[in-house]
């Protein structure tokens, strides 16, 4: 579980993109993909980030992975700012933080053998001898529940669930401390999802990994995360322990998400809250609270001032004027 020392600290992270090509004659506009988002990731913790498409959850993961630079704000890894690392330290950071992406068909090179794929991050550090490589790939495959002898095969010989296991094995090859999991099960068949979720939870137990789990499926996130952060249009609107967020959500947007989630129980009738479902544009987000255009509780103050992100209950944060 969570220890006091956070492995990662995100402070006032902001990422803006410019629309159109830089050479376009049209005036470029700014997309506010992520705006002033702060949170911590504890050692051995799973923090789930949920939200609908366009809420900025994937942008957060890309900035943390160092794939895009932030517009503003800091990311502290074990206390040091990742934008100020030396070349050597940056290299280390990239082995400490690994990623598993959504599409296990697109993320594995079809022309490489499985053992080469899963050991590639390792060979970037140091060339491996043939015997050493064989042993390592066997160990890695077994750690994700695949036969160690499968290293000589090619990705097309594996099913979706097995491919996602390979992607996990590749991430594990450099013994990271943090894994960014961006929709790790949403491309998988329903009967396979539980296998992969369980594998991820077991690996966390064994290795003390910290996970940033990004997904749109609230049940998957609630089930596997210690804490949940809810994002809406580039803002973090609620953050708290999974149980609290699911049983008494504080933000009206979280309530909307929960009420819209289909429950596999025919005795629970759907009770979607009536709202305006149109998502405002991140180019021109609403003034004040960004959710106010869809919010059943919206009042004048919501358009005037942006709500402060505050700790309403111990460890349970929310950004809403009406609370």
């Amino acid at each position, binding site marked *: 579980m969570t220890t006091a020392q956070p492995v990662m600290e995100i402070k006032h992270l902001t990422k803006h993109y410019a629309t159109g090509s830089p050479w376009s004659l049209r005036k470029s506009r700014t997309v506010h993909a992520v705006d002033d988002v702060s949170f911590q990731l504890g050692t051995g913790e799973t923090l789930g980030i949920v939200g*609908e*498409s366009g809420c900025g959850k994937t942008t957060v993961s890309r900035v943390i992975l160092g794939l895009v630079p932030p517009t503003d704000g800091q990311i502290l890894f074990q206390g040091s700012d990742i934008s100020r690392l030396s070349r050597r330290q940056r290299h280390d950071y990239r082995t400490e933080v690994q990623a598993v992406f959504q599409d296990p068909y697109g993320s594995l090179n079809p022309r490489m053998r499985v053992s080469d794929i899963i050991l590639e991050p390792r060979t970037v550090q140091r060339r491996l001898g043939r015997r050493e490589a064989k042993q390592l790939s066997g160990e890695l495959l077994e750690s994700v529940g695949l036969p160690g002898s499968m290293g000589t095969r090619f990705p097309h010989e594996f*099913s979706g*669930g*097995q491919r996602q296991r390979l992607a996990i094995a590749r991430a594990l090859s450099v013994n990271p401390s943090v894994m960014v999991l961006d929709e790790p099960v949403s491309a998988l*068949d*329903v*009967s*396979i*999802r*539980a*296998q992969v*979720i*369980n594998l991820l*939870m077991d690996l966390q137990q064994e290795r003390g990994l910290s996970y940033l789990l990004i997904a*749109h499926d*609230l*049940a*998957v996130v*609630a*089930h*596997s995360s*210690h804490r949940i952060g809810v994002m809406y249009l580039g803002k973090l609107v609620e953050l708290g322990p*999974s*149980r609290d967020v*699911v*049983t008494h959500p504080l933000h009206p947007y979280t309530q*909307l*998400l*929960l*009420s*819209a*989630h*289909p*429950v*596999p*129980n*025919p*005795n*629970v*009738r*759907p009770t*979607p809250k009536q*709202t305006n*479902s*149109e*998502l405002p544009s991140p180019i021109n987000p609403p003034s004040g609270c960004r959710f106010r255009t869809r919010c059943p509780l919206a009042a004048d103050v919501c358009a005037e001032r942006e709500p402060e992100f505050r700790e309403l209950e111990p460890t349970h944060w929310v950004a809403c004027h009406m609370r």
Partner: protein
Amino acid sequence: MTDVEARPNVALEIDDLTTVFRSRHGVVRAVDGVSLEVRKGEMLGVVGESGSGKSMLCLSIMRLVPGPAGRIESGRVRLGGVDLLRLTEAEMRQYRGRRIAMILQDPLMSLNPVYSIGNQINESLRIVHPGAGAKERVQKAIELLRSVRIPEPKDRLKAFPHQLSGGMRQRVCAAIALSGPPELLLADEPTTALDVTTQAEFLRLLRDLRDDLGVSIVLVTHDLGIVAQNCDRVAVMYGGRIVEEAPVRRVYSGPRHPYTALLLRSVPSLETQTLGSRLIPVDGTPPDLSQLPSGCRFAPRCPLADARCHAEYPPITEIESDHHSACWKPGEVASLLEV
């Protein structure tokens, strides 16, 4: 053409339908002897994983199986007593859009990006109502957009697909599908590309179409939650066959096929007592349709399987009134849920 007396409460009757594909690995039976009925004014859920044959079932009903690799090998698909599979292509065209319509997964793929949505609705209205004048069709298009709850329908006629959100696009597809209006609507994963809140609204629209207009709907999905909350009956598909079929409440309270039972048990839920506990997965992987086991297709993954299950395929039988299952041991399925 009316070869059998149409049964009064049944909108669509599928009898022993088989659709095959030629592939490099030999002949693949994507739909393998499926029998199913859709009753009037009901929403029937068809649940299955990728490759279970659920989409191919829809395409077979519409007679849109992509040839020449794929073809309907045998069976009957009766709509109001008429066997659609015995119609000529010209006759079948009289049914598509008018009496049966389909909504696909990705609204961006099914709409043409270079025509306004008014234009595209008009296109189907011209086919479905050839007698109507231009003005009449515009009026009808506005009505259709209103019926799928698109705000300011008159202005939206001029909009192009890229100017609308995903949920709005899917409503336009629904409006086009309703231009008949059809007695049967096939919706193949209509909300998979949508966000949860948009999904909830689209599903409410489908429920209203069923309740207000009496349209019979086949809702194809992989999401057990969607079926539970929207459908009247459910058919579970696995490896090209239907393994269980019953009213929704029965299936969720007492599944009689191991696949359904294990699937229900493996889905993470928001119920607080189970949060953070270990999920109980379905072991193994979905079957490869080109190398199907000779016996029950689920046997390699089934904890109840014995020699007979591996050797002989269990026929789908009515084990209680209105509850069908294709399992040799339907009585033992309940034991899977006691863990």
